[in-house]
């Protein structure tokens, strides 16, 4: 889909939200009931792609962190042997996609992948703070979409849940 006829705006109290419907009721509810509240509480920023008459897609971003619990001395020794001279890090800065949704009128035309390309580039070019990963708590129906876009699963513990935590390593996105 060619986005040149759209507008990209940041949600605020001054923005009049245009109609939005996608196949998932939770994503519709978040856009209508919660997105502005998250913005006003400084918890997330929602970006909207829209035409003159309707909302094409939206995505909400917030700061996140991936933390690893130290697994003990034997694990540290094994790590140091496998990756000599590499510093072990237990906390990584990340950006979380709180929600990402495309209107049913514009589904299956590559809009979601373009949004991910935008986010990946935004956080690897002239970024103001360090950010190593993108995280997302993905709806089950969206798992193939995120897999296709290079995301991996953070844990096996959520295999039977409605959503699964995934991550993308932004270091992959820096040209060698």
């Amino acid at each position: 889909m060619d986005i040149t006829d759209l507008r990209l705006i940041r949600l605020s109290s001054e923005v009049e939200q245009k109609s939005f419907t996608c196949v998932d009721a939770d994503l519709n509810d978040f856009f209508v009931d919660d997105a502005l509240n998250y913005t006003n509480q400084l918890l997330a920023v929602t970006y909207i792609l829209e035409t003159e008459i309707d909302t094409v897609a939206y995505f909400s971003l917030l700061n996140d962190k991936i933390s690893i619990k130290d697994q003990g001395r034997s694990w540290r020794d094994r790590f140091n042997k496998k990756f000599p001279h590499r510093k072990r890090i237990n906390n990584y800065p990340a950006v979380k996609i709180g929600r990402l949704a495309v209107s049913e009128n514009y589904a299956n035309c590559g809009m979601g992948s373009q949004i991910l390309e935008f986010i990946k580039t935004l956080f690897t070019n002239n970024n103001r703070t360090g950010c190593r990963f993108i995280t997302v708590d993905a709806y089950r129906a969206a798992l193939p979409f995120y897999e296709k876009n290079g995301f991996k699963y953070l844990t096996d513990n959520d295999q039977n849940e409605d959503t699964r935590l995934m991550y993308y390593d932004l270091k992959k996105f820096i040209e060698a």
Partner: protein
Amino acid sequence: MAKPIKETPVLKGKDAKRFTEEVYVVTPESKEAIKKAKITFEKFQKIAVFPI
């Protein structure tokens, strides 16, 4: 009311080990994929009504 945004848990055990190993063995995206994303990014910049 939508579900709250789920927090990212602290990784432990098998998850922590797998994640740590994946982090230290990074397979870069192709130059074409990165170039394509930059073109998309520039399009978003042009349609944005706020500075990026």
